[in-house]
């Protein structure tokens, strides 16, 4: 798109701008030695920026010559803005929060600088759990370091179950102390199936005069790939072929068709789940006591506790004829290809993702499942994590080791995710699943073809 002349003009004028600005700021700052300022594009949602600032403060205390400036955006805007700025080869970006399934996409398009110089293979394997660091690799290069990972739980509103006289599944609740082994037992033996969930939800849904006051069941990130992947995984079906670039036969495989049909039935046949509630609003319904069974991310534990819900944490369900599967993977941090301060940026990544100091601040603030092996050992040893609600981490540990399935590795993840979301949203709104899946697979293959050139 840029002719070389345009590029030259661009470089010349930005060089001129840069010189001008540098001179001016030099004059203004006087003889003060300029600290390196790193720009980090990251999230602005909920508690994320607050906790990030804590880590940054700790880092800056240790490294007085490096300052980190946060460019924060809401979830959706972050992805879009990364596209815009990386396409424009913006030099004012040093660190990027990379949603783990996008590592391949960003790498293929040259957004990220490899981290191989800063982390040896040996170091990588010893530092993070396998699923996490593997997800950060592309073509044999380490492209983005794991900041944390995630897991999924089933949340039960105990009061609603009590009121309906239904026995809730075995899980973790208040006034209990557990050991890891006990948790593992529950997860291995007492896990509910999706079929059981639907049965209970039908009884828990209260509808009067066409208005529903209580819904039996709800997903956290409705219609999103991250949330629903576990359905197909439970039936042994993958979304794309092994090359990451084939949809036909995978996206619309019999396994996924079954999962899609089940998903659509939640809203259209059994009517135990509300339509037209976007992912941002779902958790509030559970917090507000309007939903009996909620399947969603671990980060909801703190949120529901704060909202004062009398809830229980149980392992994520599975299809009777399949095996348990849970979602995983979260945010990584990468260095922008155009960054002028890659060494300093790597230093920060070290601090946040590797060092005990940084990673602990992050974990204690944000509370998401750590990707650091060292932190896991800490958790299992610490008594704090044997009581509710912190014992949920033990469950998360189990899931990470036994049931977690990472998202598909494909350079066309953005297209995959977008089309998945619109397809499943259509299914949610009543479109025939077979039609929807077949159309989507066709569409996806058109996009995938581009990457095969």
């Amino acid at each position: 798109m840029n002719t070389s002349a345009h590029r030259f003009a661009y470089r010349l004028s930005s060089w001129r701008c840069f010189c001008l600005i540098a001179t001016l700021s030099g004059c203004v700052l006087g003889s003060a030695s300029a600290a390196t300022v790193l720009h980090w594009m990251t999230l602005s949602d909920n508690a994320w920026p607050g906790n990030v600032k804590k880590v940054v403060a700790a880092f800056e205390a240790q490294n007085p010559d490096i300052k980190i400036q946060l460019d924060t955006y809401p979830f959706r805007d972050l992805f879009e803005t990364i596209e815009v700025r990386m396409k424009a080869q913006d030099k004012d970006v040093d660190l990027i929060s990379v949603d783990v399934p996008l590592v391949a996409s960003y790498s293929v398009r040259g957004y990220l600088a490899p981290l191989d110089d800063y982390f040896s293979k040996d170091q990588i394997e010893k530092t993070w759990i396998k699923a996490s660091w593997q997800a950060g690799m592309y073509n044999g290069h380490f492209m983005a370091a794991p900041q944390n990972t995630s897991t999924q739980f089933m949340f039960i509103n105990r009061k609603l179950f009590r009121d309906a006289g239904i026995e809730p599944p075995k899980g973790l609740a208040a006034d209990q102390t557990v050991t890891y082994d006990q948790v593992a037992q529950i997860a291995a033996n007492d896990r509910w199936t999706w079929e059981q969930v639907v049965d209970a939800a039908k009884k828990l849904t209260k509808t009067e005069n066409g208005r529903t006051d209580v819904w039996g069941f709800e997903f956290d990130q409705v219609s999103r790939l991250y949330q629903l992947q576990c359905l197909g995984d439970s039936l042994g079906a993958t979304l794309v072929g092994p090359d990451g670039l084939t949809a036909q036969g995978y996206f619309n495989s019999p396994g996924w068709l079954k999962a899609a049909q089940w998903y659509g039935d939640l809203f259209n046949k059994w009517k135990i789940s509300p339509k037209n509630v976007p992912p941002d609003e779902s958790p509030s319904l559970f917090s507000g006591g309007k939903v009996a069974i909620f399947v969603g991310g671990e980060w909801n534990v703190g949120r529901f506790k704060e909202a004062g819900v009398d809830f229980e944490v149980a392992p994520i369900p599975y299809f009777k004829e399949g095996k348990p599967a849970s979602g995983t993977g979260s945010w990584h941090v990468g260095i922008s290809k155009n960054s002028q301060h890659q060494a300093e940026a790597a230093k920060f990544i070290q601090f946040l993702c590797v060092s005990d100091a940084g990673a602990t601040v992050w974990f204690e603030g944000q509370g998401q499942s750590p990707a650091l092996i060292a932190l896991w050992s800490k958790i299992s040893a610490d008594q704090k994590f044997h009581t509710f609600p912190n014992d949920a981490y033990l469950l998360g540990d189990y899931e990470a080791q036994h049931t977690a399935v990472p998202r598909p590795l494909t350079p066309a993840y953005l297209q995959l995710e977008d089309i998945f979301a619109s397809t499943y949203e259509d299914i949610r709104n009543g479109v025939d699943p077979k039609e929807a899946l077949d159309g989507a697979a066709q569409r996806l293959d058109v996009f995938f073809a581009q990457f095969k050139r």
Partner: protein
Amino acid sequence: MTYRRSAWIAYLLLSPALLCLAVFRLWPIATTLLGSLYSQSIMQAGKDVFVGLNNYTQLFRDPIFWQSLWVTIKLNLVINPLQVFIALLLAIMANQRFRGIGFYRLLFFIPLGVSVPIASILWRIMLDPNSGLANSLINLVGIPSQPFLINKDQALWCIVAIATWKGASFWMIFLWAGLQDIPRQLYEAARIDGAGRISRFFRIIFPLLRRPLLFVLITDTAVNFLLFVPMFLLTRGGPSYSTNVLMYEAYKSGFVYGDMGRALALVMVLLVLVITTVAMQFRLFSQEEAN
């Protein structure tokens, strides 16, 4: 003032405006055209390579493009005449003279302060199938609850309704100004002639309104062809791609998929569509005038 000197002064005084338009409108259009001829190469780690008309051929082979095109045309075939017609009706209503008209006019003006994002957000809440105001109101008169924005047959028309609700007052003003411009004697003269109200309108008023009507039609068309914010905020192109207008598809290609070449190709197609339509409208009206 000699002719020569005044020309230089003219250019000088025009230069800020022309410079702005050139830099911030024309240059981007040129780069849109240029950019649509490039594509990000996977082989070369994201570098842009010249691909000629490849983006366009890929586009024309994509069934979703044709679907988007159809949605866009469908939308505009309805919304442009509809909005102009409603604006005209409102203008006529606002132009009446009786006690209390000032109050009514005030009511008509109120949506002027509402922006498209606000209208979208507000209406989304009102059109909620479960607990929205719209459904509870129509329930009162016995109509069952409608799915509105989550139904592929209703969603597009809901957006038409929202955009019209927001925009009608704005366009009304131009037409009302046009009506005000018509001397009252003309109305009187027509009445004395004994002409019926409708024919009075068409024979006398309408021709005199031609210019403001054309202005409103053309500007509104340009705006509506690129209407995008309600789709962005409310339906994300769904359900089932029923609101996936070309502009939204372009936005998705550029900002969500990162495929800038495709995005710019889509924009170029849109621009051609807009200019053609506007030119046709212009031609149509001018011809009638000649008659």
